[in-house]
């Protein structure tokens, strides 16, 4: 599809870009959670573990 107007071209590219941004943030969160899922839990208050 040919774009004659730069503004219209940008509307197209930026719309895709915003969707990508949403995917980045969610994807990163999931990726991080996956990577740290087997880390040792940090127990700062051992007395709370008694429950």
């Amino acid at each position: 599809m040919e774009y004659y107007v730069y503004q219209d071209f940008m509307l197209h590219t930026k719309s895709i870009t915003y969707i990508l941004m949403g995917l980045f943030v969610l994807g990163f969160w999931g990726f991080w959670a996956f990577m740290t899922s087997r880390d040792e839990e940090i127990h700062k208050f051992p007395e709370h573990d008694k429950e």
Partner: protein
Amino acid sequence: MKRRQFLGLLGAAGITATLGTTKAQASTHSFEGYPGAKGVLFDETRCIGCRKCEAGCNKVNKLPAPAKPFADLTVLNQERRTDEKTYTVVNKYRGKNGPAFRKMQCNHCMEPACASVCFVHAFTKNPDGSVTYDPTVCVGCRYCMVACPFNIPAYEYSDPLTPRVMKCTLCHDQIQKGEQTMPGCVEACPKEALTYGKRDDLLQIARARISQHPERYENHIYGEKEMGGTNWLYISGDPFKDIGLREDLGSKSVPEIVSGPLSVVPMVAALWPALLGGVWAINKRKEKVAAEEQKAAVKAARAAAKAEGEAKLAKAMENAERDKNQAIEREVKRALEEAEAAKKDAGDDGGEGA
């Protein structure tokens, strides 16, 4: 890792195929506007300030009647601008040879600032060259008014709930519907100061007029390049700034100007989580190491204290043992001495009789 890399490449290829259907790449392609887009050429040397264009516009767009009739030319003594009931005004200026007049209206930019900044995409640059406004989505933020370098869009401020932005439409709707063959202002002009046609043709006409009468015209077509180029073009006998057209706007359009900062936005979304996550992880590691070092230090200190205590105890025990042995020795010695003394006493007493 090979399988993952392969899948990753497949995925990337798939996405590129879907999204990369346009051949236009911003870095190499140049955007020339719709071919055949129309515009208007205003020739200042022909305008007599009769205001018939204003009347024509008012009629064709069914705008409310003005406070003073269009035939009243005394309004030209005040510099006016477009407002929510007026898509176009003619202003009077001081020209080289007496009064000069210029018609002001939306310039229908090739890369419109209003379209660039509207956050709800209420402005469209149409293939026919016009820039039109969609009141059914407008939120009324008025950023278009802020951004327009020509100060054209006007707002219905007195409407409490359904205010609209008002500006010239190049009679887009009327022409599309066939009610008009050209904008109402062009049709009404008695002196052919306004010419409607393809932008490319208008540029040619303008260049021809200037080259045929170089003494009559400023050697410049206003709107050819200003703000990235406009579909409303001006040629003039007087310097453009003298007829109210700013000469300091430059040739970069607002979409171009804004393109840089706009491009940084997704970089923040892409990079910040990684950077911040990294900082957090480094900090956690530091805390963990510090905690372990502290634990080790406490342990070592305890062990040292314990060792010291045990050493002290051992020494004390040793001393106690020694003291005990010495005491025993002393007692034994004393006992022996006492026994010795007793023996002696007994010997002294009964020693002669044995």
